[in-house]
């Protein structure tokens, strides 16, 4: 999607950045990228709501095939804005937690959200008993949408989000444990990388001049990731995670670590604490 630079200044004014305590001179250069990021997030939450509405409707209608088809694409909009979505930890917990987060695993009554529905659709191959989870998921996504609309984006979180997304992938996704029932992890990867790269691209003009080596290295590594994932592209998305070769998994693991290492300096390079 195209960055919304045009709207940036107007948005910044509307969002009240100038009045924030941190918005000293140093930070005023961030106003534009932050506004652009906010509109990127807004687009994704809007699409997330749209798709979640269709996805949960399919679940509630007992249409397994349709629900399965909508699962991975719907998640992508969530995964690409995870640094922001995660600010609301209560919602992140009910929307995106995994069976591992609960002592009773899949059978734990508190296990809910995308992965609970995923478990039902793939492992139990049924929509029976999923309605309450679908209803809650839709309510949570609406709530998330609403909260994000009213959020002033903390610059540290946004800029730090580029690295945070890579840390997420490094710590909990490379193994293919995120979408373990559907094996649609590569969709999530793509969304995480895109989300990270979006942030990086938005602030890149601010640091490019003084950090040529850094920019070169990050660009190169994003490119390898893109090329690697592109090998697994299908007509309507991505291959299942089992198709990822050991070789490519190692390459992705290394690139994720490099990107996490490099992007961890992004905040400092922009003078943010």
């Amino acid at each position, binding site marked *: 999607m195209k960055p919304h630079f045009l709207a940036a200044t107007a948005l910044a004014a509307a969002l009240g950045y100038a009045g924030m305590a941190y918005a000293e001179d140093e930070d005023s250069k961030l106003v534009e990228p932050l506004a652009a990021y906010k509109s990127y997030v807004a687009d994704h939450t809007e699409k997330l709501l749209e798709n979640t509405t269709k996805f949960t409707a399919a679940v509630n209608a007992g249409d397994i095939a349709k629900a399965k088809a909508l699962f991975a694409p719907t998640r992508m909009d969530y995964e690409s804005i995870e640094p922001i979505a995660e600010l609301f930890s209560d919602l992140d917990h009910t929307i995106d937690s995994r069976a591992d987060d609960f002592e009773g695993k899949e059978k734990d009554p508190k296990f809910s959200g995308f992965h609970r529905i995923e478990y039902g659709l793939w492992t139990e191959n049924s929509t029976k008993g999923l309605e309450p989870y679908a209803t809650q998921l839709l309510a949570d996504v609406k709530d998330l949408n609403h909260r994000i609309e009213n959020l002033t984006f903390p610059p540290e979180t946004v800029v730090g989000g580029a690295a945070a997304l890579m840390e997420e992938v490094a710590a909990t996704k490379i193994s293919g444990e995120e979408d373990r029932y559907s094996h649609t992890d590569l969709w999530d990867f793509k969304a995480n990388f895109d989300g990270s790269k979006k942030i990086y691209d938005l602030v890149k003009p601010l640091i490019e001049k003084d950090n040529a080596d850094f920019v070169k290295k990050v660009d190169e590594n994003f490119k390898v990731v893109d090329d690697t994932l592109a090998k697994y592209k299908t007509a309507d998305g991505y291959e299942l995670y089992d198709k990822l070769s050991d070789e490519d998994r*190692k390459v992705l693991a*290394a690139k994720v670590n490099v990107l*996490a290492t490099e992007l961890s300096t992004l905040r400092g390079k922009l003078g943010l604490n």
Partner: protein
Amino acid sequence: MAHDPEAATDKPSALAADRRKLLLGLGIAAGGALVSSLVSERSLAVEDKTAERQVTDAPSSNRADVEQRVPFYGVHQAGIVTPRPANGMVVAFDVIADTPADFDKMLRKLTERIVFLTQGGQPPSLDRKLPPADSGILGPEVFSDNLTITVGLGDSIFENRPWLKHLKPKCLQKMTQFTNDALVAELCHGDLSLQFCANSADTNIHALRDILKNLPEYLVPRWKQEGNVPTILPDSDGHVQSARNFLGFRDGSANPHSSNEALMDEIVWVGQGDGEPEWAIGGTYQAVRIIRNFVERWDRTPLGEQERIFGRRKMSGAPMDGKTENDAPDYAKDPDGKVTRLDAHIRLANPRTPETQKNLILRRPFNYSNGVTKNGQLDQGLLFIVYQADLDRGFIAVQTRLSGEPLEEYIKPIGGGYFYVLPGARESGDYLGRKLAEAAAAGPPT
């Protein structure tokens, strides 16, 4: 709330002052007791500082230990004939290096980190807005602490790269299953191995974290096993006997003497005339095996049986026909295995015949203790590390002879791998694997 370490350090003295006030008050009330109680408190403090120590006061180390330094540069890498410190760790990695140029860069960078870590120094301090250069787990000064880091290359790094394949050492191969093995894929093999050994476990961990942080583009960890050697109280004459493994037996008694250079040249180091590629001279083969011990079952086995299984006495470590662990068993006098069973571990491992001299190996193991298995048993064992100039004649021959030994009831090899330990870096400016990298860059002979 954040814990403020600066403030916390004031606490003990503040508390001590309070206590003195309290004592003072009591003293006044008790009249003559005042002087004596203060005096006794002070003299106690001088004689026995431990009485004043607080629960989280650090256990203290000593300068001689933390400043112990093993030279890095030399014909061979350190950490092989170097006496084992108390803590060891092996980590195997997958290597991301698609070109000879990347491979070369990795070796240079790895050498640079190893030099810094093993020789000690101060990491640079960076802008507070950036992640710090060092994990900080050893504090502002990184002490050498007897650290060695030994680099080996696995079969796969050669096999999977056309520009390295022709340079593979002749005995290097992928570890294969022996009869008693139950190898777990995630604990086996690797493109590159690092053996870390140091006085403290934290020094090893610090070094590993430093390397991961500095080489993320090249190294992806595959498996890791830590272990330790118990420290031993010297005998009254100052002699230190071999440490025990987790089966309670002394381990290392009959190891070839690592201080005997001529012997090491024969048993351990690859030399000219061994038929190895030129770049490999000065290196050695490393076999690593993660061998689980069924310790509960072992502890329920009669002592006599335990000793017959090994062919040594448990407490002294002496062979069945000897008095001390240094005595050599005389199998010639015992052809039927009446004293030392023919299938005893030490007899199979080293029959001590002229023909089996060529199978001698240098063992450098550590004990490990990981946790509890699904069956509710302790997950303990031996991080078995062995060095030899010829892998087939060394570890593989010995392990093949050991297959079927009675000890197998109590042990289960579950992981490990074979690696070729690079020759040493000769002097400042040289780096580990330089000759290999140069040969790789030159391309295969046409």
